[in-house]
């Protein structure tokens, strides 16, 4: 297509005549180049690196083909990281979606009432999302602190726990502590997207449903939920992509420990690449993560497309 259109360049009366398509490519060119430089080039470089064994400190740099990937399949630590990542993703994304939906419905009710507290509620809800992850992770690290942390103090004062719980030091608690922090931080994002979605549902549909005899639950199940499905899927896509790549939240809280119990794929890749400097193998890990995220989002996109087609 491009060749054909570009071949249509003709010189007439000293001015250059390009087809509309050719002009289009010309104007889009800078954007293409920018995307190529900042996205495609690094991805290609990482893919190339993942086919090599590169250990700069030993001066090793050789092409090894798919050997790094074969090694991945036998690497228990890789599979553990996969499991941790998926566990973290499923737990945090579903909690964020449910809580986000709850907040969105609450905020939507508030704004229907026209209450003056609405703006205040908006600000309060968006605040956790506005704080940089590293900062909020550090805040939570202090809350979780076993000896002086607020969480243990409150639980003890309320008589719920006897002794201190080492939230981040106990392998069973640590990943959940990270999930809670992530949910706290990113529920606002889900809530705001869903709130925007709720606002697009015409109020008249609810009036019609009420007259038709639908109660609150039926209205939610038959009207709100199906009409919000595209937004729900978009929330899922965004949140899943983020959760699969989670790094800073977990790294600041636990650094992947205790043991490797909270080590997600990105933490494992980071450690392999930058702490042990195995550039080849680390790149293979990063590629695996990329593939996982791509597969998940492909799944969502297919779901979304089917849904859009159904309702179109």
């Amino acid at each position: 297509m491009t060749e054909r259109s570009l071949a249509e360049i003709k010189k007439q009366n000293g001015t250059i005549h390009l087809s509309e398509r050719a002009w289009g490519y010309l104007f889009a060119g800078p954007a293409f180049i920018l995307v190529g430089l900042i996205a495609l080039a690094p991805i290609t470089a990482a893919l190339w690196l993942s086919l090599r064994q590169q250990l700069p400190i030993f001066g090793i740099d050789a092409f090894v083909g798919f050997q790094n990937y074969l090694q991945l399949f036998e690497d228990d630590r890789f599979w553990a990281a996969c499991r941790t990542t998926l566990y973290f993703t499923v737990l945090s994304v579903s909690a964020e979606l449910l809580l986000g939906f709850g907040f969105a419905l609450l905020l939507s009710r508030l704004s229907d009432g026209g209450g003056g507290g609405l703006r205040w509620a908006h600000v309060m809800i968006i605040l956790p999302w506005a704080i940089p992850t590293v900062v909020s992770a550090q805040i939570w690290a202090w809350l979780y602190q076993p000896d002086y942390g607020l969480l243990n103090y409150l639980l003890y004062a309320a008589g719920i726990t006897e002794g201190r719980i080492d939230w981040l030091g106990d392998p069973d608690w640590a990943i959940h502590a990270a999930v809670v922090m992530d949910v706290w931080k990113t529920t606002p994002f889900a809530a705001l997207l869903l709130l925007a979605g709720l606002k697009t549902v015409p109020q008249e549909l609810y009036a019609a449903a009420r007259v038709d005899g639908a109660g609150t639950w039926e209205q939610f199940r038959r009207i709100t939920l199906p009409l919000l499905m595209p937004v729900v899927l978009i929330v899922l896509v965004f949140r899943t992509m983020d959760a699969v790549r989670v790094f800073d939240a977990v790294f600041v809280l636990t650094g992947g420990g205790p043991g490797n119990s909270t080590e997600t794929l990105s933490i494992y890749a980071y450690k392999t690449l930058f702490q042990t400097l195995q550039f080849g193998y680390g790149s293979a890990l990063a590629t695996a993560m990329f593939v996982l995220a791509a597969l998940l989002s492909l799944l969502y996109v297919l779901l979304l497309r089917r849904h859009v087609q159904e309702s179109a």
Partner: protein
Amino acid sequence: MAEVRIEQLEKRIGPKTILPPLTLTVHDGEFFVLVGPSGCGKSTLLSLLAGLDQPTAGRILFDGNDVTDLEPRERDVALVFQSYALYPHMTVRENMAFPLSVVPRAKRLERPRIEEEVQRVAGFLGLSALLDRRPRELSGGQRQRVALGRALIRKPRLFLLDEPLSNLDAQLRASMRAELLRLHKELKVTTIYVTHDQTEAMTLGDRLAALNQGRVQQIGRPHDIYAAPANLFVAGFMGYPPMNLLSARLKNDSIQAGPWHLTKPPEAPTVSQEQTVTVGLRPEDVVVGPANGLDDEGVVCGIVRLTEPSGPTLWVTVELNDLNSEAFTIIGTAQAGFVPKIEDRVEVSALQATLHLFDPMTGLRLGAS
């Protein structure tokens, strides 16, 4: 089916009165039309009847039972919205089945029975071929029928229609009017129909109530209202083109409206001499003919300002001028075969006209007829 009684029903939001106290009875099985300009409170009244909105004061009774505090679902009322409010994500079948499918499980019909009902109503409305479409794949008229179907499927006690035809083109509107009348004749459900279009009100209603600023101006059969509007608002609102309303003075046996002498009808109410009245003349009673120069009794000259052909009749707006009074315009009908042009000099007469007399201060009709 139900008789609907509205007693001193009132709606205020804060200090603002949306609907001043209103009392009204709609008979069982009647097609009742609420007509009035936008903002007259008719849609509010409909919301109150459907139970979507709560009144500030007053009662609503269906067949003598107080339903004022009941939820919409407990009232057994169906409402057709101006925008139809079809559920966009559902097919026509699902839309129409919706009222039946949200009934509490204990009272809900079996699936096959619901499907039967959908088929029955769809057949009735000519929607059988469209059951698997979604609202956006339908034309305006089809959507309208789906909205009707969704309202009818439950066999409601009361059928409320909020300007259901206003989004349709003129041709379709006329045929849907006929359809609505047919439906009503067959189903005999008490129907309250809200519109701002007086033509709809005149053609559809068994009875109608003209509303202005939340107050009932007149209730009656369309013909009675047309023949004897109770006040200046109804006179000006009902009928197209609107009634000519002229300021006039009573003199002996005639009525002097600007340059125009109108014969005072014998049945006219006795009002004191020299009293100022507002006289109303239906445009179809005013005849516009060519100027022949003769100074006939009850005939006045004027200049054509606007002509408006409408089927067999040609409405002519004429500006009447008098040396000692300000100019005013009057709408009349062109004599058969006479086609005046703008700026033409014409003669206007109203020899056979029914004169409607109103008190200009109160706006009320003078006399019984």
